[in-house]
């Protein structure tokens, strides 16, 4: 039965929107089953989630893009096929997104102001991109600095979702030497619940999962110490990587195009950062579950971790020193040689002085005087 044929479909809800797009209940339940599994919720929550989402009013969402590359938006909108994830995004009320919306200029800003006013305290604020603090003029929208726009929009937000590594941890704009003084959303906003969805870009279904959780429970999912949903960022890519057995066997690719690499051997020696990167790339994958970077033959670069760009060379193994060089060790050896020579000279001088000061004992001195 199509959802549209069900009598309990309420107008203006997500359920109505799904029904209009011909999504049957079975498909929608399958989607919710996958989401509950991804969110590490009990299977019994599937029906509750389906009911909650289908009855939810279209959630007002304001999406602000600051210092970013639009990769996060590209990731979400350009999925391999028009999936249910896309549809869910279609069904939220995306009231402001300066890349996707048709309006521009004052009309666009008016839409944002109207959405903020009409849904004060209820709208979801999605932010991608870092905020430059060095100079307000480094990045502006309609003449408003990123900082001012964020502070204004955050006031009436029910929660903030920081999407992408730039918004969550500063990302590439914050990389050394951080010329714009870029900071993350959580560095500025302290009085609102913030969900960090890092990744460069983040996986679309993670975004959907967070939204679904918010629509179902009206609250944010359980987060880790970095503000990331535990259900998606609870384990490392390495732990779920299909190349992991080769790591355990000590079988490693030496170059990106050798036989070992083609046979799926571990990319650790080529700089894979999977062991220290918490994300679901290895299980959820990209492009409709087709593949993920490691499966495509490239090591993980750790893009969902804070300061990943400054965490050492991308193509050197995690166990290798970041900046130690042979010349550095040569200098240390030279210093050791000089210090050793100085100590040797001192020791020998002490020895020679002791020898020179040594007074020989004569036989007479050893004769005991009779009292």
């Amino acid at each position, binding site marked *: 039965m199509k959802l549209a044929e069900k009598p309990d479909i309420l107008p203006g809800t997500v359920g109505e929107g799904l029904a209009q797009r011909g999504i049957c209940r079975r498909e929608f339940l399958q989607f919710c089953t996958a989401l509950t599994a991804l969110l590490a919720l009990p299977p019994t929550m599937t029906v509750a989630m389906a009911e909650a989402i289908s009855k939810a009013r279209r959630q007002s969402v304001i999406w602000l893009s600051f210092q970013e590359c639009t990769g996060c938006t590209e990731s979400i909108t350009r999925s391999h096929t028009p999936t249910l994830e896309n549809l869910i995004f279609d069904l939220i009320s995306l009231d402001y997104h300066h890349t996707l919306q048709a309006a521009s200029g004052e009309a666009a800003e008016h839409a944002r102001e109207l959405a903020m006013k009409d849904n004060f305290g209820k709208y979801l604020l999605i932010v991608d991109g870092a905020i430059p603090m060095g100079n307000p003029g480094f990045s502006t929208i309609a003449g408003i600095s990123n900082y001012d726009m964020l502070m204004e929009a955050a006031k009436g937000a029910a929660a903030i979702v920081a999407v992408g590594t730039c918004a969550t941890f500063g990302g590439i704009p914050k990389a050394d030497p951080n010329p714009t003084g870029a900071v993350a959303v959580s560095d500025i906003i302290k009085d609102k619940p913030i969900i960090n969805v890092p990744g460069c870009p983040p996986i679309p279904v993670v975004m959907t999962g967070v939204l679904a959780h918010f629509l179902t429970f009206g609250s944010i999912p359980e987060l880790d110490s970095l503000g990331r949903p535990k259900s998606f960022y609870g384990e490392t890519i390495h732990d779920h990587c299909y190349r992991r057995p080769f790591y355990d066997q000590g079988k490693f690719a030496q170059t990106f195009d050798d036989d070992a690499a083609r046979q799926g051997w571990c990319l*650790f020696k080529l700089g894979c950062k999977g062991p*220290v990167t918490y994300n679901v790339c290895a299980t959820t994958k990209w492009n409709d579950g087709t593949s993920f970077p490691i499966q495509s033959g490239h090591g993980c670069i750790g893009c969902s971790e804070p300061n990943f760009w400054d*965490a050492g060379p991308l193509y050197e193994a995690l166990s290798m*020193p970041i900046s130690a060089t042979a010349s550095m*060790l040569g200098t240390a050896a030279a210093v*050791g040689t000089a*210090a050793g020579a100085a100590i040797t000279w001192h020791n020998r001088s002490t020895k020679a002085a002791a020898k020179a000061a040594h007074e020989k004992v004569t036989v007479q001195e050893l004769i005991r005087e009779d009292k």
Partner: protein
Amino acid sequence: MNHLHLLTFARGSALNWALMLCVAGIVLRLFEIFGLGRKTDLAKPRINSPGSGWHTIFSRSLPPQGMLKREPVTYIGGYVFHLGLLTAILFFAPHIELIRSMTRLGWPSLPSPLVDASVVASIIALGVLLAHRLNNPVKRLLSGLCDYLAWTATLLPLLTGYMAYHHLFIEYTLMLALHIFSVDLLLVLLPFTKLFHTFSVFISRWYNGDIFGRKGVAS
């Protein structure tokens, strides 16, 4: 400072300083040892014993006869610990990568479960040797703070490495950072404590073998 930051610091500046102090310390100590010199032995050698120093390097590295009767815990514990430690250092793929990055020398690694087993054996051996040291009156009397410091500095990299590999207790990135910090500490302590025997053991064995050979004493 987040965990990746800490790991970056451990692999970066901290490791650089530790490596430099270690290399400088080793060269300094070797200079110090060789610079002290020995008085020329003017006595005629009892027997003609060329190569007795080299011979001793090997003979004293092999299990001696009757070791199980004399000091079974010391000998077996010592062998298990040292072999396990060397296996972990020299045959775990990430460690080989570290060595290769510094020296351009590399060799095949062992499967991780084998290295893991050798680490467990080493940790157990270290525990047994410490218990023996504390229970044996002579050893306890001979032991000082430096000995216990060396024991701790040796145990920490093994323990943190094992815990990192098995994702025990704390988050992996943080544990890996702690593992590398513990290695940094070991590198700094190595030249300036009894751990320097890593570099002086064969020198002293050669010297003992050579001098005993000249004196006609079995070594």
